[in-house]
């Protein structure tokens, strides 16, 4: 069990003073993940907000070895680092008792889209590393362009809500399911609002032999057009509306980590976000309904995968 007391006594590995926006969800998640890590870590970072805002030469926010190479290849890069670690260890060129954990960070653009092949390859090859997607549901670093993680109906700069087309016309991709289909030891979804969920999952992910993956919904107030201080609240709403369920797949076994006592209607999550504002006009009612339907369907499917459709689970939801 990860405790706040324990985490509060550890050194922050992502130093303050970085240039991410105030209220950004990504560094909150990353700090939690790094605090949860018990061994030394080496990081690879895909191009994106986190990369550009933490490494402005000659400064760096990283108190751990960190490599940024390009947009689409964080997984292949960390796979190379991990391969060297295995090679040198096998050859006795680094001490047998020296333990290092390898983590790659990428946004949804760098993970769902341009980096998907690199990620899939590294997962299939079975490198021991954790890939964390900080998922803010669009290309925020370049100015809020739609990605395959952007939800249906969201207005972005390349799927703007116009006179004829009301925002993005496609549903988001279910990347967590795609990763789970690689049959790797550990896959999970989490959010920065549920720190114990995220840190516990990080510990589990870093403990396995082979690849692990955590998809973290990381609200972006610039792109989502919300209040600057809303990230944690929105992450919580995403969970409470079952738009972003907290679950894990451990060696193929699905487990729901949190089941809301009272599943909230999706509009409660969509309403505060400017990117969905146009959906609340009467002519776009159907899109709202479609979004709710898709979220319900996904939730039912997940309940079935977790064996939750048969039982009432209120008592078993763990403390998030």
């Amino acid at each position, binding site marked *: 069990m990860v405790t706040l007391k324990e985490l509060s006594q550890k050194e922050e590995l992502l130093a303050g003073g970085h240039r991410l926006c105030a209220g950004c969800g990504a560094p909150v998640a990353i700090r939690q993940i790094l605090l949860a890590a018990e061994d*030394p*870590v*080496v990081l*690879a970072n895909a191009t994106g907000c986190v*990369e*550009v805002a933490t*490494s*402005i*030469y*000659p400064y*760096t926010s*990283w*108190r*751990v*070895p*960190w*490599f*940024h*190479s*390009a947009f*689409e*290849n964080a997984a*292949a*890069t*960390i*796979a*190379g*680092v*991990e*391969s*060297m*670690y*295995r*090679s*040198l260890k*096998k*050859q006795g*060129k*680094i001490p047998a008792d020296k333990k*290092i954990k390898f983590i790659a960070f990428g946004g949804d653009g760098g993970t769902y889209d341009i980096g998907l*092949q*690199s990620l*899939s*390859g*590294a997962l*299939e*090859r079975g490198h021991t590393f954790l890939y964390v997607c900080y998922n803010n549901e669009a290309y925020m670093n370049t100015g809020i362009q739609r990605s395959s993680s952007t939800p249906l109906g969201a207005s972005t700069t390349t799927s703007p809500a116009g006179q004829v087309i009301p925002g993005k016309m496609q549903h988001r991709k279910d990347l967590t399911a795609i990763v789970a289909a690689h049959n790797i030891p550990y896959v999970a979804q989490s959010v920065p609002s549920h720190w114990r969920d995220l840190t516990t999952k990080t510990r589990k992910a870093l403990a396995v032999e082979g690849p692990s993956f955590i998809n973290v919904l990381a609200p972006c107030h610039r792109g989502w057009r919300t209040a600057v201080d809303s990230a944690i609240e929105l992450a919580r709403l995403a969970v409470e509306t079952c738009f972003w369920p907290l679950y894990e797949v451990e060696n193929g076994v699905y487990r729901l980590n949190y089941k809301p006592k009272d599943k909230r209607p999706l509009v409660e999550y969509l309403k505060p976000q400017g990117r969905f504002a146009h959906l609340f006009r009467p002519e776009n009612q159907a899109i709202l309904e479609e979004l709710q339907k898709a979220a319900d369907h996904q939730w039912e499917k997940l309940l079935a995968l977790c064996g939750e459709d048969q039982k009432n689970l209120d008592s078993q939801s763990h403390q998030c």
Partner: protein
Amino acid sequence: MGKIVAMTGNIAIAEAMRQINPDVCAAYPITPSTEIMQEFANFVADGLVASELVAVESEHSAMSACIGASAAGGRVMTATSSQGLALMWEMLYVAASSRLPIVMTVVNRALNAPLNIHCDHSDSMGARDSGWIQIYSENAQEAYDNLIQAIRIGQYSGVRLPVMVCLDGFIISHSIERMELLDDEKIQRFIGPHVSYYPLLDTEHPVTYGPIDLQDYYTEHKRQQVEAMKNAKEVILEIAEEFKALSGRGYGFFREYCLKDAEIAILVLGSAGGTAQAVVDKLRAEGVKAGLLKLRVFRPFPLEELAESLKNLKVLAVLDRSDSFGAVGGPVFNEVRSALFDLKKPPKVINYIYGLGGRDLGLEDIERVYQELQKIASNGQITKLVDYLTVRE
């Protein structure tokens, strides 16, 4: 004396890699370089090397994994061709700019479209500005020797750059030649242990690689790369000297053949050098003052040395095995011609594009070039600055 063997260029490269025993190799199959990693995979499977072989899902990931592995701190090698090199393009720059001494064999092959698996230099010539040292090989022996030297050159403290060793697809990669393999232990002694600078795996001393680097520093970092390339020139010659002591085979930036008193000459790189040499022998027997310069190192470009070597010629033909569409002539032509610009009496220079997509280059084609050079030498008239050999027009 090592062992005299008959083997293809690809197998010779794989043998060199076995002897080098890199810590990590990451590669993806592509004709005609596939065989190298195939053979190397056997060495891994049989426990003849300690290397981790990462069989990635694309060349982009191959170079990305090589970059990660090299930054982690160890010796890293790979091989590719053509489209594979093209897919790596973005990462070639990252490897060089991050100053990672990865050594890559490029088995030269034409680029699509249309699809063609045979030799030309479009692939590596396109990567000439990526910051990699480029060494070209005339035959399997040279490819083997170049690869071994590349390990030393790349990791040299004032250099720390990735090195591409190029050999002609099929012509060298798949032809069996007589060559010498040096002793394993001699190679190990020659290359020495790998030296890592700021390895990522040194978690006690964390470093940030690949930061965002804006108007205030980027130029200085690029300037440092230029300096590293300059330093590489001296290092290439120094390592060649050491290699000569080891093998008896001498190397420089290029090899001159009958050039001292020549009036006309051809400059070429890769396997065509051997063909041209045979023609020079014939012409010399006929009393023609024909010479040849076989370029080995294209990056760093040996500008002063080439100018010095070519200064007494009347006419020079540069043979390019790739074109530079929209430019005037091929890349080797442009750079060589520029190198001669400041000479008091520069030779006239013409360019031939040849051998695209594996089009055979025969003795008679080279003879035609020398005939043209003789004509220009006697009447001073260049009729075509850039021409194509063996093309149907």
